[in-house]
């Protein structure tokens, strides 16, 4: 087998069908893959000087406020308005939003995957009895001395989700990333999102509730309610994008609460909707975390 070494086409050359066909038929010959045509032109780590063409981009940004011991955390209030107020953008404790920006825009090609990982430390701050308000509880019918009882579902939560700006570097056109709702879809009269539209959402539980001394499922006189606000803990989220080419100028995490599972009607899709009735008794505190952006080729 000969070495495939065909000269490039230059001005003045005739481009004929035969010459064009030959350029491809070169590789149809038996044994074409040999020392000249494959080994010496093959690619392995020692032969490649260039870096960054496979994993083209990686960036790490700070979210929130660096405060490991929670000495002065940032607070995100729950929403009490319908339609809801704009979501809370993570900030550094001095009212400066924290998010990722990409100088000149980050180009994500059709054969790239745009991967996002983030983390944050959070804790619930409760006043009063929010687990016993809005639609945060089920009523359990008892026959004992305790009578009926409101048993919290412990499903009240904040949600955190991703927004990006793919318009320009002014960072004034934030939108939800693909697969993610803004949690302002109307579902049975409440504002929220069906679970299928929560592709970039992290759910943050707020409290746990249990009963002590429950007598065979009956709330008797000795039954006591116990509730514990969710203490400090790390949360995280992950999301990726592939598809049409896009230029990303900014990426951020936003918060809203208090949400609770609900659906429009029997058989309808499950959803998370905003329970505004308990907003006064709930807020979410947070400190710091990371936002990692990574781009690499998949084809």
């Amino acid at each position, binding site marked *: *087998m000969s070495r495939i070494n065909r000269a490039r086409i230059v001005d003045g050359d005739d*481009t*004929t*069908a*035969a010459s*064009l*066909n030959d350029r*491809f*038929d070169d*590789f*149809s010959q*038996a*044994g*074409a*893959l*040999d*020392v000249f045509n*494959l*080994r010496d032109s093959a690619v*392995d*780590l*020692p032969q*490649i000087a*260039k*870096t960054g*063409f*496979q*994993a083209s981009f*990686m960036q*790490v940004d*700070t*979210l929130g406020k*660096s405060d*490991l*011991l929670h000495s002065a955390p940032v607070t995100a209030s729950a929403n009490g308005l319908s339609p809801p107020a704009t979501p809370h953008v993570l900030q550094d404790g001095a009212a400066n939003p924290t998010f990722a920006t990409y100088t000149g825009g980050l180009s994500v090609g059709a054969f790239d995957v745009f991967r996002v*990982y983030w*983390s944050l*430390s959070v804790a*619930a701050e409760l006043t009063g009895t929010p687990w016993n308000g809005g639609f945060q509880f089920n009523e359990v019918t008892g026959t004992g001395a305790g009578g009926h009882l409101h048993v919290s579902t412990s499903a009240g939560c904040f949600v955190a989700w991703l927004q990006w700006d793919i318009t320009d570097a002014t960072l004034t056109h934030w939108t939800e990333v693909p697969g993610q709702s803004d949690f302002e879809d109307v579902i049975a009269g409440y504002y929220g999102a069906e679970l299928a539209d929560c592709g970039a959402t992290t759910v943050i*539980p*707020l*409290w*746990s509730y*249990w009963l002590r001394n429950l007598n065979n499922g009956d709330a008797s006189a000795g039954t006591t309610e*116990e509730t*514990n*606000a*969710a*203490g*400090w*803990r*790390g949360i*995280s989220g*992950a999301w990726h994008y592939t598809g049409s080419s896009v230029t990303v100028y900014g990426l951020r995490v936003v918060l809203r609460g208090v949400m609770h599972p609900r659906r429009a009607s029997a058989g309808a899709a499950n959803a998370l909707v905003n329970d505004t009735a308990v907003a006064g008794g709930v807020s979410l505190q947070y400190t*710091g*975390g*990371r936002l*990692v952006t*990574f781009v*690499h080729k998949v084809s």
Partner: protein
Amino acid sequence: MAYTKPNTFADGTTLVAADVQGNVDALRVYLHNNVVQADLLASKWVDTRHIQPPTFEAIGGLQHGVTGYQGGQWSGALVNLQFVTSYLNGAGRNSSTSEWRRVPNTSFELDLRRNAKILLHWSVEMEGGPDDVPQVSGRTPAIADRYAYVAPYIGTLDAAGRSPLDAQEIKNNADGFRSSPPYGPSRPYTVCNGYGRRTGVLAAERNAGTKTPVGLCFWSQIDRSSVVNWSVALEVWYL
């Protein structure tokens, strides 16, 4: 099968860019996926010196020298616990910036063949406490304010390799032990109270030619917390 161009050109017909590109794309697919033995020259034409030899580390579960996913491990279940404890951090009273220790068995050593982008995916599932040792002012936090922090590291455990921004907390099961039946922790280990799974990703760039330790470390204010499950998965991108 050998490469066969999908489009053949003929004199007198319009040359369409899509046909040329189609042939190029087919060649790319062929070279990436469809080369068979008959297409290769029968006599020997590649020696080991032409290929960078990766190394597989069976115990560590890593394949060094490849670009992309290199491997990782997980361990766990209630019969195979690891523990982290404030007793290794000066009873939790010393500086949270310097008293970090490795979580047992979660460290790996990366053999970096060239400058690399590293992604360390990690998770732990822990029970914190209950630690109801009375508070000593200036030495230990209040019982309800004790946490065990877990953070990933690349390189060293100091600020160069580990950041408090990557640390995630597990709360002490705050009320300690009950003194009357039913005995045991006063509060149940729920997701909000002393028990939880934490996951994260640490990203960093490091230079070639170094044996780089990576893994999980902790700083704890709780006398002991059990690591029920943990996992580490590593991506090292050279190109």
